[in-house]
């Protein structure tokens, strides 16, 4: 497939602080790419560089086979949606939608046609004559998306568009953005710190930290096979449990002080040396209730009911960890349960490099 957006060796400094370092990123035509990372990781800066709102220090940006590095934002075939909606407060919804078209001198009849199409798609037809201040947050963001729509943008840029909305609206609009992508098939680049948004929307996720892409993969791969400790920790809610210990190669096992797990089922990408320090990570849902010769026995220390399932907290050699259980399981504090780790779904990292083994 063709690349729609290519970022080549991009560096961006803010004063003396390096925000982005020699970053490469190729986004395929029609792909939904999510840039995910904690605040300050440079994801919004990267988006602003792609939009042309920031001048980069080194490297190139290509959009639709066109080197746009020195081009104005308006000449990059992009539409952008902001966290703060950024609707022009003095204009009605209709004027907001048509502003870009009016600026570039599109015919009136054509503007009308495009606005009708966009407002139908986003169900904002009834709001066209209102001012942004008379709209709710969800409606405002719909209008903001509509503004990108009417411009016939090749690439849609979203800068944390749902962060200002409450949880219910967020889920609603997330669904609509996904539907929009399905129907339009445009390339979309979406910045968020919300992993649920990233997981649900993305074709591929780029997990970023300190201006460097840590892992670029499908949501499934990122969730199941995180390439580094950072990614493993950042993705997943409730987050992955980690145990730090040593690898014993004689019986291919991981050993904490008193406990030992046989790692025969785990597929190592790089086998660690004997006695090297490793971190064993396992997601709460990959721990099963089971009584067998290999199972361990624990007392329940805390119970967090989450609706669809229940999180129970146990501790292994004083390290607390969580187990995700079916909501139908009725346990009380202090109950004794037997569990087993699903080793083949675990993730193991080198303690020093923090990379996946």
């Amino acid at each position, binding site marked *: 497939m063709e690349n729609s957006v290519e970022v080549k060796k991009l560096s961006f400094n803010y004063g003396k602080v390096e925000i982005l370092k020699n970053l490469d990123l190729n986004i395929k035509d029609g792909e939904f790419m999510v840039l995910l990372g904690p605040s300050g990781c440079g994801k919004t800066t990267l988006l*602003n560089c792609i*939009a*042309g*709102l920031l001048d980069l220090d080194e490297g190139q940006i290509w959009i639709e086979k066109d080197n746009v590095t020195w081009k*104005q*934002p*308006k000449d990059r075939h*992009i*539409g*952008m949606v*902001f*966290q*703060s*909606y*950024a*609707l*022009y*407060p*003095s*204009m009605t919804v209709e004027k907001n939608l048509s*502003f*870009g078209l009016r*600026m*570039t001198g599109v015919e009136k009849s054509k503007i009308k046609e495009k606005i009708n199409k966009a407002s139908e798609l986003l169900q904002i037809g009834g709001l066209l004559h209102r001012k*942004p*201040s008379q709209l709710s947050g969800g409606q405002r963001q719909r209008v*903001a998306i509509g*503004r990108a729509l009417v*411009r016939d943008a090749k690439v849609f840029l979203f*800068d944390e568009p749902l962060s200002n909305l409450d949880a219910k609206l967020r889920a609603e609009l997330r669904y609509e953005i996904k539907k929009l992508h399905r129907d339009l098939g445009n390339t979309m680049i979406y910045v968020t710190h919300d992993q649920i948004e990233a997981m649900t929307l993305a074709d591929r996720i780029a997990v970023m930290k300190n201006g460097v892409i840590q892992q670029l993969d499908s949501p499934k791969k990122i969730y199941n096979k995180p390439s580094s400790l950072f990614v493993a920790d950042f993705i997943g809610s409730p987050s992955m449990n980690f145990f730090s210990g040593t690898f014993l190669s004689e019986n291919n096992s991981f050993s904490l002080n008193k406990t030992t797990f046989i790692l025969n089922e785990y597929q190592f990408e790089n086998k660690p040396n004997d006695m090297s320090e490793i971190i064993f990570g396992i997601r709460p849902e990959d721990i099963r209730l089971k009584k067998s010769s290999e199972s361990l026995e624990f007392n329940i220390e805390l119970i967090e009911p989450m609706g669809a399932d229940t999180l129970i907290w146990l501790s292994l050699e004083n390290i607390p960890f969580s187990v995700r259980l079916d909501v139908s399981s009725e346990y009380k504090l202090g109950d004794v349960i037997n569990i087993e780790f699903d080793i083949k779904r675990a993730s193991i990292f080198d303690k020093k490099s923090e990379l996946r083994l």
Partner: protein
Amino acid sequence: MNFIIEAKRPKPNMSNIIEANGPKPKHLTIGRIGLYCFILMCALFFLMPLYVMIITSLKDMDEIRSGNLLYIPKILSLYSWPKAWSEACTGFVCEGLRPGLINSLKITIPSVIVSVSLGALNGYALAFWRFKGAYFFFGLCLFGAFIPYQVMVYPLLKIESAIGIYSSLPGIILVHTIFGMPILTLIFRNFYASLPIDLFKAARIDGGNFLKIFFYVIIPMSTPITIVAIILQVTGIWNDFLLGLIFAGRDNQPMTVQLNNIVQVDFGVAEYNVDMAATILTSIVPLAVYFLSGRWFVRGIAAGAIKG
């Protein structure tokens, strides 16, 4: 309805302890009373000169000479007002303040329009288009706002006479524009800096250039701060005496200069009632501006919190 309110009101019970329920009862405390007294006295203190001016302008000269400054006039005499307006002598001409009013309008209106427009443009450029040296330029502006303008009078005079607009309407308009620039740039920049930068980014993506974004996006959002700027400039320029005297030229002397000429008589009798009437007439414009725009003035000062 009344009955319900009655029922809700806390009633003292036997032990005289009121159970807290419903709105907290308001008491007029000694502190409050003191505060109101203080405010009232301040208001009276500041209104005193205006009161004296008005009653003096309504007295005839005999009554003024009798010296009862604070008494209301025994005989109401209104002749000082028309005299101040159209007959009092300002130097050799005796046409009252009327020509001065026209001159002041001719100076103030273009000066305000030009200086506020340029100030807004400056502030916009400084806040959104962070060009190289923007901070240095902003620092210069800040510095400029604190330079006493008397220092600049002589060099400006030399410059204006060199380019041939000294002692003319364009000359005085230019001077007012220059002196308004630092403070106007400052307030506009600060206002624009408080607007969400995303708006500007969105406008750039939508295809606006420097001026289009300014006209279509920024100016429509600038109402409160523009009103503040206009109030500042109208009152400042209207009340100006020195610059008008020096730069406007004999034909364009503003009202303040003519007022001074009326009050500072070298021969004849000092007509205090006419002086007072003339002073009030001169100050009507700035007073009206404050009274009519007080609401906007406060809103403009609090304008940091504008939501999209």
